[in-house]
């Protein structure tokens, strides 16, 4: 990554700025010297083989994993600062998980309102209005009183997106949001994410959906073995990758079943 974006006089300071991020589990170094910047309104897709550290990198951004070194600044907040009110910081970073993680004992409405009321201190009425608006955005208004267990995987993931949106975050993190879905429900989720991107949401998406990355992402980051191997505009990285590792990975992903 070049340093031109980090010029001090840049009018647009990056919303997310990751510098020399290190992460190791015991003696196992998972991330090495990750540098990444995401500007406001930008959609960045992170691709790479499994075990390449992309999910760990994403989880470091809202400190679900504690970084071993380096710095992460989100919207001016130093996420690695131990004096930072991490709970308050996390309300501004929405996160969507591979396994949805909806609260199984609560209805969809309660899933969307519980944190608004208990963390943001919103009134029940306001929380309800926000919940209804966001549920409409993901096209599931009629499911507001359903229990998560009665929804399909794709519906659960859309509810999870609405739940994160209900906190009015500045940035949304997606951790392989479609990897646990049946193929026929993937499209609905990607459609919601696409409209979110078009509405100007800042998004970091760890994904295996190359077509989505190509069409929606402003930038694509290819990770392998805990390092950023290549990054650039989506069409370049996916369409004509420069690095050999990227080429090999894309060949395997885009044309599965073919040798060499």
């Amino acid at each position, binding site marked *: 990554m070049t340093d031109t974006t980090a010029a001090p006089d840049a009018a647009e300071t990056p919303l997310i700025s990751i510098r020399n991020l290190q992460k190791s589990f015991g003696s196992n170094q998972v991330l090495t010297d990750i540098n990444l910047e995401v500007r406001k309104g930008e959609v960045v897709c992170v691709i790479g083989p499994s075990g390449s550290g992309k999910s760990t990198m994403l989880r470091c951004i*809202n400190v*679900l994993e504690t970084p071993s070194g380096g710095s992460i600044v989100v919207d001016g907040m130093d996420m690695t600062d131990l004096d930072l009110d991490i*709970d*308050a910081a*996390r*309300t501004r*970073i*929405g*996160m969507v*998980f591979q*396994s*949805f*993680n*909806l*609260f*199984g*004992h609560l209805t969809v409405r309660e899933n969307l309102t*519980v*944190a608004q009321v*208990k*963390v*943001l201190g919103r009134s029940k009425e306001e929380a309800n209005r926000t919940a209804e608006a966001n549920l409409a955005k993901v096209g599931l208004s009629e499911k507001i009183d359903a*229990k*998560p*267990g*009665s929804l399909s995987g794709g519906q659960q993931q859309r509810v*999870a997106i609405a*739940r*994160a949106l209900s*906190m009015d975050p500045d940035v949304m993190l997606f951790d392989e949001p479609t990897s646990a879905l049946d193929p026929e429900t993937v499209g609905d989720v990607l459609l919601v994410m696409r409209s979110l991107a078009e509405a100007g949401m800042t998004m970091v998406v760890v994904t295996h959906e190359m077509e989505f990355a190509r069409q929606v992402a402003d930038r694509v980051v290819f990770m392998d073995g805990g390092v950023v191997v290549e990054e650039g505009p989506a069409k370049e990285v996916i369409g004509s990758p420069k690095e050999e590792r990227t080429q090999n990975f894309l060949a395997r992903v885009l044309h599965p079943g073919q040798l060499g």
Partner: protein
Amino acid sequence: MSTPRTTNDGGGTDRPSPSSPPAATPKAKMSRRQKAKISRGIQYGLLVVIAVVVAFMADWSTLIDTFGRVDIAVGMFPDVVTQALKNTVVFTLLGFVLGLAIAIVLALMRLSSVGVYRWLAFIYIEFFRGLPALVVFLVMGFGLPLAFPGFQLPRLYIIMVALALVSSAYMAETIRAGIQAVPKGQVEAARSLGMSSSRAMFTIVLPQAMRIILPPLTNELILLTKDSSLAYILGSSVDGRELTALARAEIVNTANLTPFIVVALCYLIITIPLSYLSRVLERKYGSAESGVK
């Protein structure tokens, strides 16, 4: 169920299989169904014989005289219900509520990231799980007042604390297992929404753990109902007796064992609905909830 259908049941002849031994021709061998029928018949026959022998050998008039004196049974009412049964229920509930509160704290300590908490909880649980409830009652009731002359709790508190000490150790392990059965993703989702770890525990994890641990907790309540009988060794005033204490007093008064039967029925009045409740809860929550994933 006892006769799984297999391919060589009955119609084994029209499928010549090279590996089957030649002796196993259908006419020489009883089918499995027939065998099961005969063996069941023998078992039932034995049961009937035993019942008949017992019925003839028993000295019914003495038995009824010892255990089934209706006048004595009737004489125990209404005190057996209004005092003894009530006291048993009160002791059990007080002990259970206090025990549950201690157990939740212990379970959280067991799961804490602070090593000292984990060890303290571990020692407490191992200690009180290993002690007979009777010993706990004796120490609470007689040991501590001797060791600490100022220590003089009302009897009700002693019973409540003793029952809580005994039950909390068991319930703590149940609750810990329940909490650990809630997928880690639930906490991560709660934390990512800005909840503190304790808020995530109380609003997200514990309610979901509760459905897992409710059936075993009901079981613990049944055990505790029976353990409350140990309160009799502390002695009591007439209106402080629970079921077992009342039974012992009545047996002395009447020189007859009928009170045991009456009290046994009273315990069953409490425990049978509870075990029914436990089964209902198990059926309702026992199968993995699809929402919790």
